[in-house]
């Protein structure tokens, strides 16, 4: 918990450094068809060290397919995937060394114990016997799995299985981690713990994750991408997004509202929307929020100001508007 809050300020500086950080994964015009349907259609993006890239999109948008191709489980029809400067399609074995993968269903054998599973996975990724034991011990500590060591995986709850899945994905210290809906099926506390863990992991690696909980993506990720019908329709860094959306809208509530034109005359205000019941949305220039003028005018002319708040656009609004826009565009 402590760590979660401590990380916040240093993450901002991290975001600034990311632009220069080394490229860990590069995807170029990735395409994959299922029969007639283009599940993934010419998707390109890059992932740098320190980035956590959140994939958003409605069901069936092609997120999982993209991630499966990144993990080397599914072969693409066209395009290139470069992981840690090795081509995944040309030298799969070498590229997969720097890759950790958690699909929607964790890759676990129900009849094995937690220790056996982690050990097996580490050995599969080329760790020596002693190294894999050490790595398993470390990761169990980090994922809170130490007290279930010898339990059979099939007997553990979904939350534990998910944690084992994540532990397995990062066990061999990969530089690129692909997590498909890492927090699905977890209770709020567990998913908070997992988010903290992923955030920690992303500091010295590149993480790609998909999720349906937008607040989670906002909490973990440095970058977001929205997919729809196989295409990448939006990509931005979260810092940019916040900055650009934060300060251009103001929401006010007035008991005795003046005519709309009076509000439009306020300095810096570009446009006013009436929201009904005495509420208005003022659109203003990014660096000229008319707080002072508004308050002075409101008290001088007795408008009865009872609410004044900068309106932050949540990821959810962006998500919905992008999905709707691209639907209308078709």
């Amino acid at each position, binding site marked *: 918990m402590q760590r979660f809050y401590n990380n916040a300020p240093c993450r901002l500086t991290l975001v600034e450094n990311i632009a220069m950080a080394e490229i860990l994964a590069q995807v170029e015009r990735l395409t994959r068809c299922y029969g007639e349907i283009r599940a993934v259609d010419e998707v390109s993006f890059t992932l740098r060290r320190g980035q956590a890239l959140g994939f958003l999109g409605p069901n069936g948008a092609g997120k999982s397919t993209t991630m*499966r191709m990144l*993990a*080397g*489980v*599914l*072969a693409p029809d066209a395009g290139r995937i470069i992981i840690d400067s090795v081509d995944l399609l040309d030298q*799969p*074995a*070498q*590229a*997969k*060394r720097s*890759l950790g*993968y958690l*699909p929607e*269903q964790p*890759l*676990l*054998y*129900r*009849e*094995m114990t937690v220790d*056996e599973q982690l050990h*097996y*996975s580490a*050995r*599969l*990724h*080329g760790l020596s016997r002693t190294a894999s034991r050490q790595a398993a011990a470390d990761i169990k500590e980090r994922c809170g799995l130490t007290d279930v060591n010898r339990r059979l995986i099939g007997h553990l709850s979904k939350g534990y299985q998910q944690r084992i899945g994540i532990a*397995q994905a990062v066990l061999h210290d990969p530089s690129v981690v692909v997590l498909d809906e890492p927090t699905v099926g977890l209770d709020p506390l567990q998913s908070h713990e997992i988010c903290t863990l992923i955030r920690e992991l992303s500091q010295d690696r590149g993480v790609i994750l998909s999720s349906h909980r937008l607040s989670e993506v906002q909490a973990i990720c440095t970058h977001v991408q929205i997919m729809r019908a196989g295409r990448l329709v939006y990509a931005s860094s979260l810092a940019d997004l916040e900055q650009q959306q934060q300060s251009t809208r103001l929401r006010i509530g007035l008991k005795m509202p003046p005519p709309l034109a009076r509000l439009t005359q306020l300095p810096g205000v570009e446009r006013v929307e009436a929201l009904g019941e005495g509420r208005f949305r003022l659109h203003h220039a990014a660096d000229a929020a008319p707080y002072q003028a508004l308050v002075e005018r409101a008290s001088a002319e007795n408008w009865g100001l009872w609410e004044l708040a900068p309106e932050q656009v949540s990821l959810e609004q962006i998500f919905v508007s992008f999905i709707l826009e691209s639907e209308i565009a078709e």
Partner: protein
Amino acid sequence: MIVVITARELRNLFLSPLAWTLLAVVQGLLAWMFLLLVNDFRELQGRLASLDNAPGVTDLVAAPLFRVAAWVLLLLIPLLTMRLFSEERRTGTLDLLLSAPVTMSEIVLGKYLGILAFLLIVIALIALMPLSLALGATLDIGKLLAGILGLSLLTAAASAAGVYLSTLTTQPAVAAIATMGLLLALWMIDAASTAPGVTGNLFGYFSLRRHYDAFLLGLFDSTDLVYYLLFSTAFLGLTIRRLDDLRLRD
């Protein structure tokens, strides 16, 4: 890397009751058969003594035992191989192997060798029975070894076929039935070898049984060895291709 997969596969077999049950059933059935054969031999012994060039204990006990063992194993191998890929595909755990830095051939060979290692344990236990006769009789060790080699090769070939068929479906039972059908068909195809001309020869050549019988007679012919090796390699090759194809398809 192959060793890691093989070790897990073998361990996994012994974690489930399947392997233990299989060992118990095979051992029980064959032990009973073995006792019957030893008994028959004891009764025949007096008459055999009067014959020149009489068949020995190896011919009268070990060879028939191995013949029955082959039958039993052909029926049970499909039950061992059926889960190899079909279940991993159904539960999705195959992706763990696919996303790990191992090649397709390593995955297939690792799993195959795991099954084979288990079957070699079964064969070793079967071979102990005729070997125990060495305490009181003179065995034809050469013939016995040829029999063991034959049984191992037959097992290796049958498992390879089973491994391939388990990649074709996500339902273990379907894989098992298909494997059983294929193996029995190849065993019985021998009956058609009486057909005249090339057809008969061809049927005879493809028969799993014809090549096995040669080993039981103590004949070590490289044709038979090559047959089994080709059979196994072909099916393992098909398995690798099939898995590569699956990565493209689903």
